[in-house]
């Protein structure tokens, strides 16, 4: 079974690598890049809110801090974006400590509200901070190109970097799922008293989840900025909803949820935008809101949940039919 999964991954990665060789249309590559970025972001939210059960309604704050740190260092100090990315990671993780250490004492809903408050505070501060471009945002300089400058004219390099980040994200979630960390986080999600009774240092593990979350969101933020060559407070701090949506629909708390969710939703969103939103009336957005409510109420475990259910029913049917045949043989 392990071998089959491993081979599956090799094939999948192989396909991803070959894909841009055959498909050169920039628009399709753009969709692929967005899928990769949203998968990474979805995984980052999933670790904290899905696995550890600490619902965060302000995930984009880490995205924004990562992106803005890189942007400011590049534009104001001429610092290379790769180094800027590390700075962004550091800033994001530092922020996660500032939020986490005091706020993890708070019970679920209060924590969720606190995350809402934090992202609002950061958003409002940045929107007024002239040094950070204020509400107008920051335009990236178009002087240097190439891998060293983390700025490219074509989509393909971005595609590979985004893909690498997605693979890092999947690697992280795999590690968590199959190590003691995953078990611990799921225990914390369900019952913190039981967790403590088994020697789990609950605040410590919540913090571990948050740091992974902040890390993945930060690198996405840096990439996002380098890709758009522009950031402003709205782009960076108002993405919490799509991030959550992608994860919820794919399956919150599952390893593949964000990947599936992004893989389904981003293309659908693009198609909907082309055909439906011409009137500017946001019917595609309307569908998303309905989708969240429907999924959360009727199938909280998302697409992955439905897949699991189908597999379970399939296995059960196999077991039942085998049982029936057996008893017939005995009768004979």
């Amino acid at each position: 079974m392990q071998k089959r999964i491993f081979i599956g991954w090799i094939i999948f990665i192989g396909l991803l690598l070959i894909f841009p060789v055959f498909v050169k249309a920039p628009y399709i590559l753009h969709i692929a890049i967005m899928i990769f970025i949203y998968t990474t972001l979805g995984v980052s939210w999933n670790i904290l809110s899905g696995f550890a059960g600490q619902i965060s309604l302000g995930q984009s704050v880490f995205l924004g801090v990562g992106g803005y740190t890189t942007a400011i260092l590049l534009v104001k100090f001429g610092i290379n974006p790769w180094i800027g990315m590390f700075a962004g990671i550091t800033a994001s993780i530092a922020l996660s400590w500032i939020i986490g250490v005091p706020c993890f004492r708070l019970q679920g809903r209060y924590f969720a509200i606190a995350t809402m408050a934090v992202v609002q505070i950061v958003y409002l501060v940045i929107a007024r901070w002239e040094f950070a471009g204020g509400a107008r945002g920051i335009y990236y300089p178009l002087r240097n190109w190439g891998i060293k400058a983390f700025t490219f004219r074509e989509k393909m390099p971005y595609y590979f970097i985004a893909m690498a980040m997605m693979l890092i994200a999947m690697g992280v979630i795999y590690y968590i799922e199959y190590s003691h960390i995953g078990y611990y986080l799921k225990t914390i999600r369900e019952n913190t008293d039981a967790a403590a009774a088994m020697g789990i240092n609950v605040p410590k593990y919540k913090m571990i989840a948050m740091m992974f979350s902040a890390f993945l969101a930060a690198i996405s933020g840096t990439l996002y900025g380098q890709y758009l060559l522009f950031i402003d407070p709205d782009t960076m701090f108002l993405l919490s909803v799509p991030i959550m949506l992608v994860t919820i629909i794919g399956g919150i708390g599952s390893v593949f949820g964000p990947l599936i969710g992004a893989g389904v939703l981003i293309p659908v969103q693009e198609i909907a935008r082309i055909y439906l939103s011409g009137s500017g009336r946001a019917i595609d957005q309307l569908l998303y809101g309905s989708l969240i409510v429907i999924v959360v109420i009727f199938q909280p475990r998302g697409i992955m949940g439905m897949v699991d259910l189908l597999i379970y029913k399939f296995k059960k049917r196999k077991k039942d039919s085998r049982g029936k045949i057996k008893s017939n043989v005995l009768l004979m």
Partner: protein
Amino acid sequence: MENMIILQVILSGITAGLVYGLISIGLSLIWGIMDMVNFAHADFMMLSMYFTYVAWSKFALDPMYSLPIIIILMFVIGIVVYRNIVRKTVGGEIVTQILATFGIVVFLQNMAQFIWSANYQMIRNPIVSGSFELGDLFLHKAQVVSGAASLITAWLIWIFIHKTKLGWALQATAQNRGAAPLIGINVNNMFSLAWGIGLASVGVAGVLLANYYYIFPQVGATFQLLALVAVALGGFGSIPGALLAGLTVGIVEALSGFFIEPAYKYVVVFSLYIIVVLIRPQGLFGTHH
């Protein structure tokens, strides 16, 4: 003269705070009775603001006349939303509850944008317009009426909860959901009632605000967080607490807008929330849940 300006600021903070208080009361009611946070609360207010606008623009009904109709409408919507959507998440994981009402937020905001577009609307020349003077102080009629109406609504809800049989049933459900059926209380009906009253009261706030505030799909967003802050500060389930906390938020907002920069007033309010909730999880006025 300086004192006059500060007094003016505080007064507008009070009227705004009373409206926050009214919004918070509905939220606090639902939270206290059902142990559930309605993240979509202020978006229902947005809905009632749009209803008010439609009544005014299509039927030439002044907000003060459409008020009773909208109260009933919002009450019904509250029950419908509870029975068809929210009920399914009761007793489930907190994750599901948070995400379900959150999904309603996304739905409502986008539905409003779809139906009425993202343009900012405003009601012109309602009955309550203009201002009146009190010595050196200017008071906008609309804001004073809002403040007064909020107080009256809060008082009416308080009387209902504490002086009527149905209100006692609500209290009983809030205190002990498990034991309530034993004395003949249909808990499901109580929850429906809580949602009905909650949305009706936030509907009142919406109609009042429509008199002088911009109407647009995302108008609920800021008020939601302010209301959440107020409820957390005031202790959920407490009507006087929610009102007082709303007042506090309004005054703090107004004063920080005046003494620091207007754009930072929310920063102060939200930071206040974080600080208070860390030190005293039951809020400023609440009792330990």
